[in-house]
């Protein structure tokens, strides 16, 4: 092992293994996770060339092979628990994705939740057995966020008892669904249902798209890959165009709405239930934000303790770059953020499971808040992680730019989560809508509960900007609980400001929509402040669950850094609302720098605690043993350009030119 890393590990003030247990949710879960990861590591069939050296077509092929293999192995081993499947798969995939991803998630889910019993009996066994592979085709080339704007039509023909599917315009072509281009032979297609001459809105249909046996597109179906992307190279995101394509009536998913054989439309009951699925998927994205940032931090921090550059002290050897304050300032707040987001992900998952229990007992009361909150948290965490991963990459200087650092792969795979499952700005505005609604409720004398209950304080005691003395207690910048209060005050101030600005626009007799649009920048700010408060609150709350004193000490520093760094980046909000004085802000800046120095000796141990195996990390710079330079050289030798000692371009272009000049 590299000497620098050895020293870093020896000097940690806590036992990272204990922190790993905490992150996994118990020592037993850590043990089981490692056991499952070992199954992959010891399986020679899962070894393959670095995907970065392959073309897209080759990468796709490797990915398909791996998907098929994973299915077989999971069955062989009898792994069925969702967490365990997840551990297994992420070890296989590293930073990459599998073309069958949507088959296992959205396609199977939709069949389970929206099929009648008869339909389930027909489709689910085929789906589980991968005898059909499906995708979920919702987004169209011209339509994403606004579902009602989708243009694909499904027109019922009572004469033949069939639906006729059509893509009437270029903009209506289904575009983006994963696995659609080359892999799937079935798709669940969302289309506007027309029956008896009337449009009944969006409904889901099971549509075969490729011939069984030959896998050729069926007549009336045009399907293909949408071409190269920023990342997801091994995924065949696809397009789908349908021309008078007929499917039997039974292929409409009819658990809720129905079309009778004669074309009579039967309306569905409440659709609030789909909220549950959305909350679940968003909680996964929050978890993914945390994990992607954890991985990026692991790479950047390990590399920064192996890399030496310049002089701090004249005449002495070049120091580790992690000893530079500017480097610590780039990386440690992100490390703290990674831990904070881990708490948020765990909280959302737990809450989802608790509430799902309630829903099954018919209690839907908590769902609207969780739904609204999950939208904002999805956006807040994915935006932050997105920027943070790039920050980590740039902190690795030139070498971060090489694909061997693994950071480009983490970034390009993660960044679409700012867009998919709800574009982030739209998500923030959804949360804002809930916040404004809660504010209005409080203004009219009703109390609100849950994470927004701080708004209740606004009714009795108005926030008075610029009057710090009027506050019951001043903010204590070394006390996480007091900082939670500070974030709470900031959130109330910004929610109130946005709500008032919205009201002012409305008073100018503008339409509801126009006023909303003219206030949306304020509204997004309010949502962000609310989410930030929630994150600080959850992180702080987690401290009380840590028993080990050494772990508690280091986590307290991280939590404090998270909270204070956030203030230092938004001092304007805290100053303008009179939550902090100018002198306190100066103290906050100073305290942040002290915390950087305090965290420095534990930095490597803190990323070790994430416990990412090298294979999962997929980074030469982030290797556990720190032997980066020799391995960069080994990696580079495999570059496709190095296949021959003299590249063919020399003979084709250079030599003839030199002869002419």
């Amino acid at each position, binding site marked *: 092992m590299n000497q620098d890393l050895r020293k870093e590990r020896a000097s940690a003030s806590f036992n990272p293994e204990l922190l790993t247990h905490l992150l996994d949710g118990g020592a037993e879960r850590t043990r089981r996770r490692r056991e499952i990861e070992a199954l992959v590591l010891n399986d020679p069939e899962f070894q393959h060339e670095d995907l970065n*050296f392959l073309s897209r*077509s080759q990468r796709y092929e490797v990915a398909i092979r791996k*998907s098929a293999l994973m299915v077989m192995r999971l069955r062989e081993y009898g792994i069925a628990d969702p967490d365990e499947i997840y551990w297994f798969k992420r070890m296989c995939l590293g930073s990459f994705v599998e073309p069958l991803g949507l088959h296992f998630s959205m396609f199977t889910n939709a069949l389970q939740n929206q099929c009648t019993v008869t339909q389930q009996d027909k489709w689910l066994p085929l789906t589980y057995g991968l*005898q059909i592979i499906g995708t979920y085709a919702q987004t169209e080339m011209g339509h994403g966020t606004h579902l009602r704007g989708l243009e694909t039509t499904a027109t019922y023909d009572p004469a033949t008892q069939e639906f006729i599917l059509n893509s009437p315009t270029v903009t209506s072509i289904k575009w983006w669904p994963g696995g659609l281009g080359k892999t799937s032979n079935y798709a669940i297609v969302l289309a506007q249902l027309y029956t008896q001459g009337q449009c009944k809105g969006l409904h889901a249909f099971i549509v075969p798209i490729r011939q069984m046996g030959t896998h050729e597109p069926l007549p009336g179906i045009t399907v293909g890959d949408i*071409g190269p992307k920023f990342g997801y190279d091994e995924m065949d995101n696809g397009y789908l165009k349908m021309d008078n394509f007929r499917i039997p009536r039974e292929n409409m998913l009819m658990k809720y709405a129905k079309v009778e054989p004669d074309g009579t439309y039967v309306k569905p009951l409440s659709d609030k239930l789909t909220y549950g699925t959305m909350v679940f998927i968003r909680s996964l994205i929050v978890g993914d934000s945390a994990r992607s940032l954890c991985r990026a931090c692991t790479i950047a921090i390990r590399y920064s303790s192996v890399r030496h550059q310049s002089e701090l002290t004249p005449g002495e050897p070049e120091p580790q770059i992690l000893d530079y304050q500017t480097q610590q300032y780039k990386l440690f707040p992100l490390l703290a953020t990674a831990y904070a987001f881990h708490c948020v992900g765990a909280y959302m998952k737990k809450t989802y499971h608790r509430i799902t229990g309630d829903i099954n007992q018919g209690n839907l009361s908590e769902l609207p808040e969780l739904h609204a909150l999950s939208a904002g948290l999805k956006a807040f965490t994915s935006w932050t992680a997105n920027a943070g991963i790039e920050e980590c990459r740039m902190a690795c200087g*030139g070498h971060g730019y090489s694909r061997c650092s693994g950071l480009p792969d983490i970034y390009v795979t993660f960044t679409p989560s700012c867009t998919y499952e709800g574009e982030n700005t739209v998500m923030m505005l959804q949360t804002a809508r809930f916040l404004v609604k809660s504010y209005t409720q409080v203004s009219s004398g009703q109390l609100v509960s849950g994470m927004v209950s701080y708004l209740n304080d606004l009714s009795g005691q108005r926030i008075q900007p610029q009057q710090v003395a009027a506050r019951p207690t001043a903010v204590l910048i070394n006390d996480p609980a007091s900082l939670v209060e500070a974030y709470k005050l900031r959130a109330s101030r910004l929610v109130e400001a946005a709500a008032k600005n919205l009201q002012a626009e409305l008073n100018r007799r503008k339409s509801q929509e126009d006023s909303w649009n003219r206030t949306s920048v304020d509204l997004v700010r309010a949502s962000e402040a609310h989410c930030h408060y929630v994150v600080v609150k959850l992180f702080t709350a987690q401290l009380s669950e840590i028993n080990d004193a050494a772990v508690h000490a280091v986590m307290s520093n991280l939590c404090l850094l998270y909270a204070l760094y956030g203030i230092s980046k938004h001092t304007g909000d805290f100053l303008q*609302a009179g939550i902090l004085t100018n002198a306190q802000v100066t103290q906050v800046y100073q305290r942040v720098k002290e915390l950087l120095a305090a965290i420095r000796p534990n930095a490597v141990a803190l990323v070790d605690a994430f416990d990412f195996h090298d294979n999962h990390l997929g980074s030469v710079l982030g290797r556990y043993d720190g032997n980066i*330079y020799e391995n960069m050289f080994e990696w580079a030798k495999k570059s496709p350009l190095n296949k021959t000692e003299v590249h063919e371009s020399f003979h084709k272009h250079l030599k003839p030119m030199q002869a002419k000049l």
Partner: protein
Amino acid sequence: MAQWNRSGYFRSSVSRDVNPDLEAERRTASFSVERLTAVLDGGADNTRTRRAMEAVIHRDPVFSREKQYFQSQNERYEAAVRKAVRLKEKMLQRGWTENRPETKYFYRALGGDVAFNVHRVFKNSILALGTDEQIAKWIPLAEKYHIIGTYAQTELGHGTFLRGLETTATFDTSTQEFTLNTPRISAMKWWPGDLGRSATHAVVFAQLYVKGECYGLHPFIVQIRSLRDHLPAPGVTVGDIGPKMNFEHIDNGYLMLQSVTIPRENMLGRFSQVLPDGTYMKRGSDKINYLTMIVTRVEMLWVEVIPALQKACTIAVRYSVVRRQSKLNPGEAEAKILDYQTQQQKLLPLLATAYALHFMNAYVNKFYSKGYTEIREGNFDSLPELHALTSGLKAIITDYCTAGAEVCLRACGGHGYSALSGLPFLYTKVAASCTYEGDNTVLFLQTARYLVKCLAAVHAGQPTPPSVAYLSLTNSRKCWVRTEADLLKPDIYAEAYRRRASRLLSTAAAKLQALIQSGAEEYVAWNRCTVQLVQAAKAHCQYIIVKNFIDTVEKLTNEAEIQKIMKHLCDLFALHGIFSNTGDFLHDGYISGDQMDLVTASYLDLLAVIRSDAVPLVDAFDFTDENLNSALGSYDGHVYQRLYEWAQKSPTNQQVSQAYESYLKPLFQGALSKL
């Protein structure tokens, strides 16, 4: 939807068949796009020349970038070599030399997608560091491409800190040769462009040893590949460093030297030489070395960095008036996404930034040309200021453009993620600029070091150079703004920026001083203040950019309409900067909370004002469709058709994959009987 008859890969920019949503935007322009283009080009003559040069490139299919996004690393490299060769032929045919000003337009037209860029650095370094005899020997060979050169400085383990480089060149008096060695793996040259597969020669920087003594870093010309069969020379291990985030058309390489000998004459000797008897001689100042660095930084901003943001804005703004999503008013059609305030907030400040940086760059070029002449004449007085200014501006401009391109990418939603949007390419390319030619944090600290010195000079009552003269002005205590309109006065916001820069620098310098006085060693104190010093350097650069934008707008008196819209952009740039850093301006109470609310209101109002000219403002950058290489950003706005037709050409849709036969078919067998 308008008829769309494709007559080629991209239609020309003068196509009359334009998406009506885009056409509507152009009809209401408040100024003449053509005149603004001329302003940006520095005169209508330049615009004409540029377009003529671009047409030459676009007419030649060798330079087509249609397949670029589909190509593997190998194919990209080969295409770039082919283009470089073709470009050379063209230049010979037409008698264009590299030093003619219009040649720079080629690079704009090619979008940088051409090999042998470092060959130019190779030549420049010989011209700057070589003796007259060396120039006479090597430059003609390089001009004719009889040799291809690279510039090998950075090593695997060493970048920023040049003195730490480990490659050695040891002189042997008996053979009159230098022996070059890579003593350990971290000393391998790593990253130089054109090194991996193309270059036959390299200017290698190595620690010079003569008779057991180290004389520090010196440049040597080393042959690395045979001129006969292109195989590596004896003792040379050379190759490509593998896939990167972008720049796949360039064979960034590694180079290991094991007892490679070169004649004594191959040490570039303008400033130092080793005589046959081993005597080391230094002559003149090698400060001119800095000039090479400054030249490269100034050039990259113009060639690569600022255009990347301008292109990203062009693509995102055009797409945002073609893309419609959700309804602003019930019963109406779905709204153009640029009509959403949140979308305006993402894109329009970037558009203002693109203009601000363009004007800043124009100023730097002027400043630099003046300094360059003086320095070549041996007058180094302006060097420190020029160096500090270009360091800080390189850092802040690459930061702005990288962050901006990424925002544009995400502002285009899912389609921005498609390579065919052109945005991933622009982003990943410009992102490299934050680390090459000096890591940005290091550069900010260089500027900060200069500023701290200047501040000390101010305190000592000494004169200061023009770009930092503001440090000696006295500070007023309160901003006197009362209304939103007050905020649109350039003097007001310029003063706020000036004060902030001045305050952040004073605070950081005072802290540094206090630490030193309390007994900390200077370098320890420096490290402990670096976060603050970086902030001070950034604030300084931002003030310079705002001030320059104001000055530029004032000079546009002959173009009333253009002056008006540029004034709006300048206001937006400045107020957005305050809005995004409220804490800095509120901190010492210079701007009050109530005034800050006015800033926000004023800033948001400006978004709506600029919204109506957004498309003409990006049109004025005058990028051809070939240049943008984007399905979302083309001039005619036929976004969806182009996306669809281009995707169908993807190799994934043309090539047969084994995936189905080998892996999927066995799975599907069971369903045949059941469906």
